[in-house]
Each structure stands twice: as structure tokens, then as C-alpha cells.
């Protein structure tokens, strides 16, 4: 596997947020990680990208409790669980964070330039920018607009575009559909399909299991910190148990 997470556990103080999770993403795959609120999906992404370890470093001497990390993450055959967050990005594992987090007072183009931080070659940046503009033409139109004035969907496109600016090997997306209209979600997933056909590996975290699995090769279902189901997207879509995981077991004569 290109990206492999094995037996990872994360504690925030005494709460175990991730409980012995193993999963992976192969070259050119789109893998969806679905599950209800509080399942630990976002935490897992943040663990993979080193942001949890960074937070742990920051909190070391504070009184707000401790973060504990266990397990092993490998990317491209090398262990990355001890590598600092900015270094992980350099290796090609790039996250488009939850709630998009654009730099609201900065223009769209400046936002994208922060994404291109790792690239020194001007022509290369130009080329990636062209590519992002081609995927999301609306960003080109709005390139000099302050990003705080964009709509939610456009901000999500900006977040994905910013992540694409340094040419990731694996793109990690945290809830790209959050708070968006179905039509906009469809547009964003259309782009993800396109990227996947070009051979980009994508790890997608979503609450909306149906949409996420329809576009994926494989999927994992998480609940309260564990992976409770894994399989191809088709299998999971057909699995009634997945619905149960979201809604809880049926009672009495309902449904």
C-alpha cells in the first residue's frame, strides 16, 4: 500500500478517540472513510498528516491534558508517524482541511500561492495554477477576489485547489460536502472523479456515506474510534449494517 496506517490509537487526555485503526490507500485509488459524528474520521486524517503530533508538541507543557499517539503510519515504504507536519506535506501527502479554512482576508490567488509554497520553480507553479483553474474555472474568474467573500462551494473548491497546488501524491479531503447544496457537491465530486482518472490517490472523509461510496473504489466505516466495516464501495453500499451503524439498531416495528 502507498499509505498504510497500522494499529493507530490516539488519546486526548483520557478519551480514546481512535482505537487501534488499520487502513490503507493504494496508488490511484479513491478510498472513502465514512461514519457518523464523533467517529474519529477527522482525527485520523489529522493524525496521518502530522497535525495531531504537532498539537501534542504544543500542548506538552500546558495544563489542558495530554495527547497520546500509538501505532505506525507508513507512506511510500517509509514511516511518517514521527515526521513533522510540514515535512509530510513535502513528501506529497496533502490535506484540504475540514471547514475549508481559507485565508479569508487574502485573495484567491494569494491563497493558492500559499499552497504552492513548496515549489520553487516559477514555471511549475504557473503550470499547476493553470491546472487548478482548468478544474475550477470559477477560481480563475474570482482570482483577485478576497476569499472570505466566496460562497461555501467556491471556498471548498479553493481549499481543494490550494491542496492541489503542490502536486500531491495522496490528496486527503476532510468533508468536502460540508454544508453545501447537492448541486455543488456533485460538481466537486465530478472534479474528484476526474482527478482519480488521472491517477491521483485520494482519501476522502465524509459523513454522507451514499455520495462518498458511490464515487469510491473502496471504503471504511468508522464508529466511535474503530473501523467497523471495510470493503469495496459496492459491498458497503449494499450492506444494511452500514445504515445501522449510522442510525443504531432497529426497534420494534419501525421501518
Amino acid at each position, binding site marked *: 500500500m502507498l499509505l498504510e496506517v497500522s494499529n493507530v490509537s490516539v488519546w486526548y487526555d483520557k478519551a480514546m478517540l481512535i482505537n487501534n485503526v488499520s487502513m490503507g490507500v493504494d496508488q490511484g485509488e479513491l478510498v472513502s472513510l465514512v461514519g457518523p459524528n464523533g467517529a474519529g474520521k477527522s482525527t485520523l486524517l489529522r493524525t496521518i498528516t502530522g*497535525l495531531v503530533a504537532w498539537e501534542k508538541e504544543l500542548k506538552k507543557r500546558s495544563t489542558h491534558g495530554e495527547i497520546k499517539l500509538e501505532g505506525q503510519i507508513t507512506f511510500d515504504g517509509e514511516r511518517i508517524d514521527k515526521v513533522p*507536519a*510540514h515535512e509530510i506535506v513535502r513528501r506529497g501527502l*496533502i490535506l484540504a*482541511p475540514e471547514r475549508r*479554512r481559507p*485565508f479569508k482576508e487574502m485573495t484567491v490567488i494569494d491563497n493558492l500561492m*500559499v499552497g504552492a*509554497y513548496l515549489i520553487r520553480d516559477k514555471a511549475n507553479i504557473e503550470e499547476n495554477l493553470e491546472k487548478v483553474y482548468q478544474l475550477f474555472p470559477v477560481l480563475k474568474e474570482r482570482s483577485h477576489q478576497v476569499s472570505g467573500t466566496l460562497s461555501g462551494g467556491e471556498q471548498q473548491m479553493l481549499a481543494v485547489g490550494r*491542496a492541489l497546488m503542490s502536486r500531491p501524491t495522496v490528496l486527503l479531503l476532510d468533508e468536502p460536502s460540508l454544508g453545501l447544496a447537492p448541486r455543488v457537491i456533485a460538481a466537486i465530486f465530478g472534479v474528484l472523479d476526474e482527478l482519480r482518472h488521472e491517477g491521483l490517490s485520494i482519501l476522502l472523509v465524509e459523513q454522507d456515506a451514499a455520495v462518498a461510496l458511490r464515487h469510491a473504489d473502496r471504503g471504511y466505516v468508522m464508529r466511535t474510534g474503530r473501523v467497523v466495516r471495510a470493503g469495496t464501495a459496492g459491498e458497503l453500499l449494499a450492506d444494511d449494517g452500514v445504515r445501522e451503524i449510522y442510525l443504531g439498531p432497529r426497534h420494534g416495528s419501525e421501518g
Partner: protein
Amino acid sequence: MKLILFYLRKLLAVVRNEVLVLPSRVAVIIFFLFILLLPSFTDDVYILRVFTLTCIFAIFAASWDLLCGFTGQLNFGHALFFGVGAYSAALMNIHWQLAPWFSIPLGALVAVAAGLTVGIPALRLKGTYLALTTMAFPIIVIGLIFTFPGFTGGELGISGIQKLAPTRIEEYYVISILMLVLCTIMWKITDSNTGIIFHAIREDEIAVRASGVNTTRYKLLAFCLSGFFAGLAGGLYAHFMRIVGPSTLDVSLSFQVVIWSIFGGAATIYGPVAAVFFLYPTLELFHLIQDYRTIVFAIVVLLVLIFMPDGLFRWLREKVEEECPRCKVRNVAWRKTCRVCTASLE
């Protein structure tokens, strides 16, 4: 001769096409000319002295803006860098007989070290906590100064520091030209890629991290750069005043710089510089109404903050210039069509 004429014509063309089209650029040119020509209007020692100090504080205010306006690392103890720069320059000059050309930059490097000392603990703190912590540092240094009066001069400070230049006019030119150069450099820094990252850190540090930037390094860089420029200002102050006392580390100086920057418009560099040039001489002018000086000053500042919360000079700029809705190029507000893409501005 022909070549000179050619370049002159080229220069004129640049001035006409690039400078005269925007009021803000005209203002910058007028400001530069004013600074450089001031001694030819007056050789009054008092006025030159006021403007020399204004220049020193302009560097100081711009350095605060670089750290706090752009990177968002709220520093309420900025006088630390100023005082450390001033004291280091003074001590090196007195004890090692270093000429100002060496003592000032070396003093600034000591201020960089001070920047690191504040910067490293600051990495763990945010917002109010950071602001309160930074406030403590200059007070600690004042404590140190009082503990070793033999070396630091204690409450009386260090006097008898070498003059920067023989005459007031020369001193004025050294400091004012340095001010123009240093502020231009700071503005260039904020305009560069580094500046974009500073700005992005203020907006959302996690997202910057997620883009592969070592934000720790950039935050420390901001502290160091800011410390360096503030230290230079402090060193210039030491050699200009020829006496350095604990007042260079005073809490009031730390807050003065915050007031200047917010008044002029934080995160612009030009805002704080213009604000110092507006407020510092104005405060001197208020000597005429000695008794009410501070209260009138406070009222002026409060009115500006209430009605122009983004800063006086940014507000002014928004009044006379507007962005073309199509190509985002700035235009004079009274133009009907954009000067580049000819889109209608109405």
C-alpha cells in the same frame, strides 16, 4: 547627452503612466520629497529634532506592524526590542568605543536575540496570553538594569554616547534616509512570498501548516525581523539622544507603538509610518495648548478609532481610490472607466 535625454524621457513616462495615475503613489512621492527637502525649507534645530525623532519612531512603528499587523503575534512589549537595541548600542559605544556604524547594527543583532527569547515561548501562546506575556519582558529587562547600576547606569541611564554625525542636518539626513530605506524594505518583505505566509499565519495557522509551511520557523523569523528593525531604531535613538535611560523600555512606549499602528491602519506598513508622521509632530504642536495636550490628543485618536476602525490612512485611501470590479486594478475614485481594462466603474 542623447542617452541622458533618452533616460530622462523614459523616467518622465514612468512617472506619468505609473505614478501620477494613483493618489497613493503621488502621496508616497511627495512624502519622499518632503523628507529629503525638509532641511532646505528650515534649519530650525527644534523642527529638525522633532522630525528626526519622528523618523526613528516611524521605523519602530513599522517593525511592530510587521510582527503584529501581518503575522498577528500580538506584542504589547515591543519597547523591549527598542530598549535592548538602544542599550546594546550605547554599551558597545561606551565600553568598546565602537563607532555608531558598528554599534547600531550590532545592537540590532542583540535585539534579534531578544526577539528569539520572546519568540520561542510565544510559540506556545496565542492572543491575550501572548500579549500579556510579551508585556512582561521589557519590565524584566528594566529590573535587570536596576540590579546592575554600575554597568547599566541604573535609573540615570547611560550618557555621553558618541554623536551620530557632527551636525543636526547631517544627523537628520542619516536617520531620515535610513528610515525611507528600512521602511521600503519592510514594505517589500510584506509584499513578498514571505509576507503572504506571514499574513496567512495570522488568518489560519493550521491551514498554513497543512500547506507544508514550517510555521514555527516563520513565526520566529517574524520576531527576529521585527526585533532587528526595532533594534536599529533603538540604536539610532541612542546615538541621536546621546543618552539612554529605562524610559526606552517603558510600558508607555510599547503602547504608543500600538496606538500609532492601529491609528494609521495595521497590516499596511505605510499606515503606521504615516500615523507617526501625523501624530508625533501634532503632539509636539499641542505644546501651544500645554494643559490640554494629552486630552486633545486622546480625543483625536478616539475619534479616528471610532469612525475609521481600519485606520485613518487606509480609510483615506479607500476614499480616493477604488478597485476595478473586472480586473482589480486600482483607479482614482473619480474615473469613469478603468485605466487598464476600460470597464465602467459606475
